[in-house]
């Protein structure tokens, strides 16, 4: 493998790790809200979170490019803060990926929270646990399988993205050139051997992730 390939692998893993961490932080409150709210906006928020599931990444990337660009609201904000522009940078790629992989993390966690039901939280309240306490001491431990699925899916999905990376990140070595883009470059240049190494690696990686998910994810535990 060439050093550019290794750099792409390293960048991909770094991106996926950062994105997964952010997704858990951002996705958990959204999942909790969606699982428990009776607000009329529940359907709308749920639909917005799920949009990346159906939209072509290019569409999402296009609008994010406009939002982050010099005339977009986010672009003007980052410029006003003296941070420059986000497109074609690693942080820009991170933000775009968080949006793109959000449903893959929110939905399993939301399902897990919904499966817990009201009762264990009521029991916790009758045992003097404040809502914040009950969230950490009861809801999160009981939803653990959902967190595991969400984290694995979010990580794997970020590793596998291509369209949105091209739109937002471009193809800058060691900054935004991830494995999927590198494979594309190899194929374009008819470097099939190098493409095989990376593509085969991706197949193996994805298979191992899914195998782990289906094998080790414990059946959901209900309150007894």
């Amino acid at each position: 493998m060439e050093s550019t390939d290794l750099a792409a692998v390293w960048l991909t893993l770094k991106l996926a790790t950062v994105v997964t961490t952010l997704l858990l932080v951002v996705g958990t409150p959204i999942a909790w809200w969606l699982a428990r709210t009776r607000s009329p906006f529940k359907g709308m928020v749920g639909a917005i979170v799920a949009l990346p599931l159906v939209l072509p990444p290019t569409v999402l990337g296009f609008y994010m490019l406009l939002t982050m660009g010099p005339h977009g609201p986010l672009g003007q904000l980052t410029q006003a803060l003296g941070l420059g522009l986000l497109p074609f940078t690693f942080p820009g790629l991170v933000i775009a990926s968080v949006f793109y992989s959000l449903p893959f993390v929110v939905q399993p966690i939301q399902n897990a929270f919904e499966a817990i039901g009201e009762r264990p939280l009521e029991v916790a309240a009758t045992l003097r646990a404040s809502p914040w306490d009950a969230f950490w001491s009861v809801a999160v431990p009981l939803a653990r399988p959902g967190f595991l699925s969400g984290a694995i899916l979010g990580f794997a999905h970020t590793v596998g993205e291509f369209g949105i990376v091209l739109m937002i990140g471009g193809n800058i070595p060691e900054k935004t050139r991830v494995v999927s883009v590198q494979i594309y470059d190899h194929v374009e240049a008819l470097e099939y051997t190098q493409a095989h190494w990376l593509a085969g690696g991706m197949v193996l990686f994805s298979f191992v992730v899914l195998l782990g998910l289906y094998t080790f994810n414990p059946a959901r535990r209900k309150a007894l």
Partner: protein
Amino acid sequence: MSSAIQARFRIERRDFSLAVDLTLPGRGITALFGHSGSGKTTCLRAMAGLERAADGYFAIGDEVWQDEAAGCFVPTHQRALGVVFQEASLFPHLSVRGNMEFGQKRASTAGLRFALPEIAEMLGIDHLLARNPAQLSGGERQRVAIARALLAGPQILLMDEPLAALDLKRKLEILPYLERLHRELAIPIIYVSHAPDEVARLADHLVLLDDGKVVASGRLNEVLSRIDLPSAFADDAGVVIEASVAAHEADDLTRLEFPGGTIFVSRHDEPVGTFLRCRIHARDVSLALVPQVHTSILNCVGAVVVDLAPTATPGHVLVKLDVAGEPLLARITRRSAERLGIRPGLALRAQIKAVALLA
């Protein structure tokens, strides 16, 4: 009663409404009895603060947990209470000990204080502490749930049909523990049930609910012996008497004494002086104007007719009797009532065919 419980809730929903105003004793077991949909569980949840009545007031003694008129509502987790639900609802990610310590760790010092080993012994679960909830039987789980509630230092214990999800064998396994709580706990217990036998066995005070309203509230026997109520207990109409074991006789009978007289039951090996609860169904009591000599019925007490009323069973009437201050019910045919000229004030003999010991 300085620590009496005041509970007033008004809840309006599309398909259901609850409007209760209760003063309950500050100790002993109060049963909320009614059919499903009568509002008894909603009432209990309102007491726990799990359901918020827009118009509500709830206080134990001086401690006010809800007073909507004054804008006061103490959230559930700040109330020193214990709740036992129909399903034990143990936390599956914690061991039995972990479950029991969950509330104990978070308890304030306001309520009842127990040590974990003491409670575990009292409920017979000391050998289960290291287990997972999944390894327990239904009865054991419910005992752990009770222990967990008590360890949180409650000032009141709320139980929502704690035996309803269990089969008869498990029920009989738990009832003695509940009786023990009744004897040994200084805090009031509110016990929701739709099973007449549980109520007769455990309750001191009985609240009858129907369609979200209080039909009757009073001492157990006062309510059980009211013949003007819609037949909540129907065929199970009857009273409960507390009698003490007076002697064990040679022919395998145990003599029980209660204020109204003496009754004999099959030998029951409790020490002399023990108080036992007995249930006497109205259908097992017959009436005679003069003492009967030529009869096989052993238990016969003097009584005065208080009142009589029609009952749900066709052709029958319920007769309320006074036996030295204790109420007794008899269900006889209307024809017999007319033939004997049963009327309020008449002194007669009540023959008791069967006595169910509730222990």
